[in-house]
C-alpha cells in the first residue's frame, strides 16, 4: 500500500485557542477550526512520519476505531486539508520548503 506523508503548509497561519486549533488557509485566508482528528494530523504533520503510523499510534489510541477504517478516514481528511493548503501531502517524505530561504533584499 502506498504511504502518505504530510507536512504543515508554511503559508497557513495557526494557533491553539484553549485547545482548539485555529487555522487560516494560505490560499484564500479562509478561517477553519480543526476537530480533534484534524488537530492530531496537523500536530503530527512533520513530513517524515507516514500517515498509517500516525493513525496507528495517535488516532487509534485516542479513539475506539478500527485501524483500516481510521486510515481511510484520515486519508480523506488529509486530502481535504491539503485542498485548502493547510497541509502538504506526498507519497514521499516531505522536506519542508521554507520560503524564507529565498533571496534577501
Amino acid at each position: 500500500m502506498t504511504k502518505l506523508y504530510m507536512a504543515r503548509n508554511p503559508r497557513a497561519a495557526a494557533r491553539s485557542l484553549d485547545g482548539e486549533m485555529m487555522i487560516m488557509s494560505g490560499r484564500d485566508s479562509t478561517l477553519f477550526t480543526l476537530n480533534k482528528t484534524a488537530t492530531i494530523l496537523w500536530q503530527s504533520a512533520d513530513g517524515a512520519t507516514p500517515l498509517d503510523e500516525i493513525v496507528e499510534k495517535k488516532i487509534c489510541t485516542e479513539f475506539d476505531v478500527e485501524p483500516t477504517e481510521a486510515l481511510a478516514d484520515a486519508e480523506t481528511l488529509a486530502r481535504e486539508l491539503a485542498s485548502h493548503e493547510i497541509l502538504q501531502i506526498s507519497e514521499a517524505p516531505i522536506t519542508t520548503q521554507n520560503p524564507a530561504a529565498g533571496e534577501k533584499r
Partner: protein
Amino acid sequence: MSGLLQELTEKALAKNVPLSVQLDLTYRCNERCVHCYLDHDDHGEMTTAEIKHLLDEMAEAGVFVLSLSGGEIFLRKDLLEILEYARFQRQFCVKLKTNAIMIREREAARLREIGVESIQISIYSHRHEVHDGITLVPGSLQRSITAAKFLKSQGLRVIFANVLMVQNAHDYQGVRALAEELGIESTLDPTVTPMMDGNRSVLSLGADQATLRGVFRDQGLVGDVDEFCAIPAPGDENSLAALPCSAGHTTCYVSPYGDVFPCVQFPLPTGNVRNQKFLDIWRHSDKMNEVRAIRLKDLTTCTSCTHVTSCTRCPGLAFMEGNMRGPSSQDCEKSFVRTGVPSANMLAKKRAVANLVQIGPLPNSPSTSAAALA
C-alpha cells in the same frame, strides 16, 4: 465578522486571550502626513532579538492576528527577517500597514512568498496634488499606486486606507473608484486622532459636519442608509452590560519601545515588554484590568445617552479627552450627524453654555468682558 470568527472572538474573550495585536515596529517614517499622531524620532526601538522574543511571548499568549505597522515598517532593515520569523516560526496571521512607497517588484514577490494576509496602504486622494499635499512627499501617490499594482500582481490582498479630512473631503469617492479600478478593497476612516503626547491641534483637520453627513448617507459606504442613520432604541439592562470595544479584551497595541497599551488609539501605558512578560502585562496590569472592567452602564454621561448602544464611541479618544469612562466628542458629533439627534454630552455642554452669565465691563477696561459659570 464571519460566524466562525465571531465564535472564536467570543471564546478568546471568555478565556482572556489577546487574539489580535498591533505591533508598531518603528515610528520613523518617510512621509510627513499632516494629520499624523506620532513623533517620528527614534527613541530606542526594540532590536530584532527583542522583537523575536516578543513574538515568542505573544504566540505563547495565544495571539493569532499580528498587525505590523508604524511609522513606515519598510524603514526597518530587519523587516523581512521579522516577517519570516512571525510567519514560519510562529505561524501568525500577519497583516501589514504601510505607505508602500519602498515596495518594488522584488519586495512584493517576497511578501507573497512569506504569505501575509493583507497589505493596507494609506491613500488619501486619487489626485496627486491632494495626496502628496497630505504626505508632504512629492510623487508619493504614484509610488504607492505602483506598489499596489506590484502587490496585486502577486495575488496579494491589498486595501487602500483613507482618512477623511478637510484637505481630501471631496476625494473619498475618487479613492474608492481608483481602488475598484485596480481590484483593491478600500476603507474610509472619518477619525483624526490626537497626537500621542496629547496635542489636539491636528483635530482641526477633521472633516466638517456637512462632509460627514454626505459620507453617512453614501449607500456605497454604509449600505442601507435608513438603517445606518436610524435613531437607535434606548439601551436596556442587557445592552448596557456590553463592552465598550475590544481594546484590552481581545486586542492590544505594542509600541516600538515595548510599551503595551489597550489600543493604538488608547495611550494608557499598562507595562513594558522589556521589563515584564507580555502575558503578565495582559493578565495582571492594573490599568489593563481597569479598562477591562468597564461596561456601557459604567460610562459617565453616555449611559443615559440615546446613542449609547449604537455609538462608535472610542474609549481611547475619551481617555485623551480626560476620562476613559467619559464621552468622546468626535463620536458624539458622528452620532449626531448620522441621526440628527444630539448626544447627551452635546446637550450637557449646551446647558453649560446657557448657564453662562455675562458680567459687565470692568470700570478701568471698558473693552474687557468676562464670563463665569452661574
